[in-house]
């Protein structure tokens, strides 16, 4: 007999799924550009999902993992923490998306429904305890993202970006699936814990390593790590900015969770093999990301390359043992908060039919509006990793974990290129403060978006108070994996 109370740990997922359907229907009854109610529904969904996710922890049930649906779904502290971050990011995404789509005169309910479905995919990935569930979550996220990228269907660039994203994404999914099937062939199970046990009890590595290579290629594609980064700049540039800021944020957390679940929880015995592969990917990403970003004049492309280098840092953390996983979890959380803020600024400066995605659009922002220039300064400086902003601490923890593992040369290379990377961040700051504005057009945004953006940017300072606590939580939840 089926017992409904078994579903309780999956309540956040069920809520997001049902609300996505509600938003889909509500979208039919709202006029174009009148989507205030839809945005409200979406934000409320995230708030309640956060309450449902957190209520057990407030009640004192600490970080024990619960398995559900025949052990295909896991509810643990690691997943809950990442999910809460995803909810917060999505609230930001909803507000920025509303602002952007209103500007472009293209606000439709489906956009928000797809965002919610993508959120569901992310949650499924974070909670996947079985290769099938992980893969299906990935596909749900990817399929929604393709549609979101193609949203501006009259824009040639948007279509091109969607096409590239779709083809390369499908290729990456294929790679991942092939790797998973090889691993399944070698161990005969799809459960993460059982795979780990099966690998430990046998010594035939050949199939497993082959499978591992494909899995890492797949994850590398999804994360956008060099040398699988080719799609990132084109997709970031071509997609509507609202979609870009989504792609740059929450899915990265999902990809991180995917990497930890697959590499850390099921293939942990093969750590010697994947450690060196990840180190290579990390170093290549840091080098490629920082060097190519130097030549960009388009801000979206610049952020795309900066993402690549940040992903490199995140992967570097995964090399650094158990502390390292916590450090890279901290890194990815901090990075996604910075990233949506950065793209949020582009949304802010855009106007109808015009995207402020060029560095020269930020010229003299200080004269136009000192507060926004200050917010952008915080975000950019945090991305570059200037102390005492939070972006500095995330880099610090990762490098410390890497050095503790004895990979000093990795840390040295990473640091050198982080310093080189500081150049292009500083250029944006210089343009904002020391150049004359080309336009004196007033920046016209709603109060809500202004508030969200301010909170988002001030978090770079404000989170400093909780850095040790946040990092402690990261350590706690990754240890309980």
């Amino acid at each position, binding site marked *: 007999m089926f017992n409904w109370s078994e579903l309780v740990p999956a309540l956040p997922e069920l809520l997001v799924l049902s609300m996505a359907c509600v938003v889909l229907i509500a979208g039919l009854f709202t006029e174009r550009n009148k989507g205030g109610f839809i945005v409200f529904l979406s934000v409320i969904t995230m708030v309640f999902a956060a309450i449902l996710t957190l209520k057990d922890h407030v009640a004192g049930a600490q970080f024990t993992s619960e398995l559900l649906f025949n052990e295909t779904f896991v509810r643990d502290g690691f997943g809950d923490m990442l999910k809460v971050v995803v909810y917060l990011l999505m609230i930001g995404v909803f507000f920025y998306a509303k602002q952007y789509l209103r500007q472009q005169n293209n606000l439709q309910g489906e956009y928000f429904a797809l965002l919610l479905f993508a959120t569901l995919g992310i949650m499924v990935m974070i909670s996947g305890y079985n290769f099938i569930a992980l893969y299906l979550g990935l596909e*749900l996220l990817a399929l*929604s993202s393709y549609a979101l990228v*193609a949203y501006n269907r009259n824009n040639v660039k948007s279509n091109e970006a969607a096409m590239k994203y779709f083809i390369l994404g499908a290729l990456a999914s294929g790679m991942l699936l092939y790797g998973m099937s090889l691993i399944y062939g070698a161990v005969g199970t799809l459960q993460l814990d059982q795979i780990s046990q099966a690998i430990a009890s046998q010594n035939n590595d050949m199939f497993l390593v082959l499978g591992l290579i494909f899995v890492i290629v797949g994850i590398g594609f999804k994360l956008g790590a060099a040398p699988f980064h080719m799609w990132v700049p084109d997709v970031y540039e071509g997609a509507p900015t609202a979609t870009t800021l989504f792609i740059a944020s929450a899915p990265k957390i999902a990809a991180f969770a995917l990497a930890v679940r697959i590499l850390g929880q099921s293939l942990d015995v093969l750590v010697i093999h994947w450690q060196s592969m990840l180190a290579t990917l990390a170093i290549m990403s840091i080098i490629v990301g920082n060097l190519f970003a130097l030549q960009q004049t388009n801000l979206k492309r610049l952020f795309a390359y900066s993402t690549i280098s940040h992903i490199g840092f995140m992967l570097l953390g995964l090399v650094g043992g158990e502390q390292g996983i916590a450090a890279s979890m901290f890194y990815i959380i901090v990075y996604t908060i910075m990233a949506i803020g950065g793209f949020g600024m582009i949304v802010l400066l855009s106007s109808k039919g015009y995207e402020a995605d060029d560095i020269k659009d930020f010229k003299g922002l200080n004269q136009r509006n000192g507060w926004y220039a200050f917010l952008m300064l915080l975000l950019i400086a945090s991305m570059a990793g200037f102390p005492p902003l939070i972006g500095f601490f995330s880099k610090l923890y990762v490098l410390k974990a890497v050095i503790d593992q004895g990979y000093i040369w990795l840390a040295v290379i990473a640091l050198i290129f982080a310093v080189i990377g500081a150049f292009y961040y500083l250029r944006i700051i210089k343009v904002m403060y020391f150049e004359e504005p080309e336009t004196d057009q007033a920046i016209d945004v709603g109060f809500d978006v202004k508030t969200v953006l301010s909170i988002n940017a001030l978090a770079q300072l404000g989170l400093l108070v909780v850095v040790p606590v946040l990092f402690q939580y990261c350590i706690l939840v990754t240890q309980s994996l």
Partner: protein
Amino acid sequence: MISPELFQQLIFYVFATFTVGSAMAVVTVKNTIYSALFLVLCFFNTAVLWMLIEAEFLAITLVLVYVGAVMVLFLFVVMMLDVKQAKASQLKQSYTKAALLIAAAMLVELMMLFAYKLSGQIPTDELIRQEAGYSNVAEVGMELFTHYVYPFEIAAVILLVAIVAAIMLTMRKREGNKQLDAAKQININPAERIRVVTMKAEKGQGQGEES
């Protein structure tokens, strides 16, 4: 008199030959329509092979889904696109080397596989024969809705997203669309419907500008 086992083997070889033959025809035939039809033949033969290993559900699904839906769609597209038959001379040069390389690699792989199998390392178990009255569909359904209910539901959501995305990306209000709005038609009143235009009488064969 042929024994049942022998008869089964006979069936297997006949249909296996047809499968391989039609599969080869798919890639060698120049006319795209014939190629698609050969693919249909290939699917039918594969369905019979599945029937032989008692996978009735898969066999029927293959015929229903692939032959019934996918291939029909395929044929539609091929016929609507008016694909020109590629001339042999155009095909000759471009991909021959790459194709040969891949074919050689696959041949080596196949030979390795056979060598591996002949070495006896892969256990070749007999098929488990189920007794009469065993329902394939019921078994698949039970597994799908108990063990795999979570992946199954997510797959359903993925389908929903696919539908939403496809409609969102393709449905548009075109300018000059002649579609009729039934609600508007019903709500109209006579005063709006007829417009009396006064105009000069025209001579000759000129046509009225408005009616």
